[in-house]
């Protein structure tokens, strides 16, 4: 079953690789992945759609939270959230079909972002099923090229990430001594 994972991560090299690593280590195929900076440029927001065995869903989330660069990971599959995807479509539009295509685009709330003698470039946003339909309809008008953005989702439950405070350097050394009783030489 498709799982929607939402992540707040530090914008650091390798962060993406670590996160996808949790999934690829299990041989999961990622359906879509979006990542972009948040309001705080040091952080990124990521939305991943991936086919995960339902019994392993919470484990996958826990394994992501465990990553040092991940500040928050939530499973939005069944929680209160909104999700949208965008698609860019280039459709061939000979003179006799132009009005029909534009009408159809309007029904889906799509916008024309480029128009030429050959055809249109259209932009539509919506939930993935709606975009599927949009693409199907446009395809009925002829040759078509489409690029989807992948899903972006946001939880409606506004949970603040729990962040760890700074620690003094060398604090591990003391703790380990306490644990082992072996003095540090």
């Amino acid at each position, binding site marked *: 079953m498709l799982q929607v994972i939402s992540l707040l*991560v530090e914008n650091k090299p390798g962060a993406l690789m670590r996160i996808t690593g949790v999934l690829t280590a299990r041989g999961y195929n990622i359906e879509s992945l979006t990542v972009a900076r948040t309001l705080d440029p040091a952080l990124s927001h990521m939305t991943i759609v991936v086919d995960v065995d339902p019994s392993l869903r919470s*484990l996958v989330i826990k*394994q992501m939270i465990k990553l040092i660069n991940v*500040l928050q990971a939530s499973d939005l599959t069944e929680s209160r959230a909104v999700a949208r995807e965008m698609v860019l479509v280039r459709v061939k539009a000979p003179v006799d079909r132009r009005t029909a295509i534009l009408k159809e685009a309007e029904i889906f709330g799509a916008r024309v972002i480029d128009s030429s003698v050959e055809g249109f470039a259209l932009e539509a946003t919506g939930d993935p099923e709606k975009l599927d339909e949009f693409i199907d309809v446009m395809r009925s008008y002829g040759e078509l090229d489409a690029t989807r953005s992948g899903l972006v989702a946001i939880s409606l439950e506004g949970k603040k990430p729990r962040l760890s405070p*700074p620690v003094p*350097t*060398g604090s591990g*050394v003391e703790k380990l001594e306490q*644990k082992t009783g*072996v003095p540090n030489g």
Partner: protein
Amino acid sequence: MMSTSSLVSGARMLLECLVREGAECIFGYPGGVTLPLYDAMYDHPMRHVLVRHEENACFAAQGYAIATGRVGVCCATSGPGATNLVTGLVNGLMDSTPIVAITGQVASKLIGSDAFQEADTFGITRSCTKHNYLVKNLADLPQIIHEAFYIAGSGRPGPVLVDIAKDVFSGQSRYAPVSAIHLPGYKVPSDGHTGQIRRAAQMIWEARRPIVYAGGGIISAGASAELRRLVEFVDIPAVCTLMGLGGLPSEHPNFISMPGMHGSYAANMGLTQTDLIIALGVRFDDRVTGRLSAFAPHAKVIHVDIDPSEIGKNRIPELPIVGDVRRVLEKLNQILAETAPAISTQNAAARRSWWHQIREWQEQYPLKPVISEAEIKPQHVVSEIDRLSGGKAIVTSDVGQHQMWSAQFIRFNEPRLWINSGGLGSMGFGLPAAIGAQFARPDKLVFAVVGDGGFQMSIPELATLVNYGLPVKVVILNNGYLGMVRQWQELFYNNRTCAVELEGFPDVQKLAAAYGFTGRTVEKPHELAPALQEAVDDPGPYLLNVRVSPCENVFPMVPAGSGISEMVVGPPQPVLVPK
């Protein structure tokens, strides 16, 4: 100490950071891009131990880390040096061993250009480490080194690799010691949830057939004393996993040995029939649980672990407690003490018969070494080592049958004495780990128990023993076979042994002599004890090659995929003719 106003090299800064983290020595092997680092070591008090292969640097750092509880440090050059660390890193990841691995990388401008000895170390080791870094700017170096130590040693420990570009080592800058590190996304659980711990106490009092299942987490958390208090106060039987041996003294009356594939009958039956498992710092590994659906079918489970992703991974517990197992046990013991008088007698009769049952299992199928007068049995060797150790020596082991016999028959009355490769089972671990352990604990008698197969994987490290005068006693349980593989071929592949005969083993006396120390081969049972005594009395390293009976197999054995109560307790028929 260096002054903070003058310019220093990145290499020098790295060494200062290591000193500030309490590192005593680096196990390493130099190369082109780490030249500036070794140049800085030239006149720096940091000790460098030159091993003979980078994998062994990583294993030695782990031997050091396990023996002390401190973060071990290893170092390798770029490309082949770094790729040689990979097995060691995964080993540390599987066994939660705190190490920091420093690797050199080609100059930052060359990264990505297929430069000489370039490898994508950062990418390669991503899945082999708890965390890893690539340092391209000198300004980031001190911060990252301190972060690496903190991550390696805290929470669930593990390896952290720092890949450092050559120009970062050689670059010059002012050094301002870092006073704090901030990893907002790195959570280190500490105290467990008090309400959950209270419920745990209640479940413990209510249980009729409770058992403690303790693992490596007890050792890394330093929770042995609290574990002991728990099992004594409530009088619960306890099994310790391969990684947890020594967590409870082997001689403790409540210790019921190791569970799992080669665990004792009593330990496995105990886990099968218990009604409450108190799982402490364990991960319900398949080598312990056997077929999961048959594991502890009647039991409720309390699972205490510092790593939330371990809880519910293999067995869903009735009561999860995320926390440092020492802190949780402190609180649990306190609550148990407060609640004891009211309900402790509730199940007294049931508890008595549970103990009675466990003692019966122990008597029925005791873990008793086989000893023969005609040939040296491998179990005989490990029990002689046990006798000399008296539960106090450090014993490292390689991987195979000899490892299982060591775990079965050698007592460990303290934590951090038993050092082996559990999760990854990497052959070649025993000797380099002993090197690390002997550096860590020069006061300790250190045995490296190895097989004739694994020994040959780390044979170059004999030079390191001599080089540093390390009095490690290497005992080879020489059965002429890749014994553990032969055992599986014999039992599960219709005795079609293939590629397991180890012909061409060297003459050990000559081998040791070539390195400049004492080696000896024994093959008669009566020679064994004196030879081992001679090894222990020798002030230097000692190589003792014991020709053991070639066909001995490890029992009990739970065949892979079976429930752990379905043990084969002894050899079926003799199937192999001794060579």
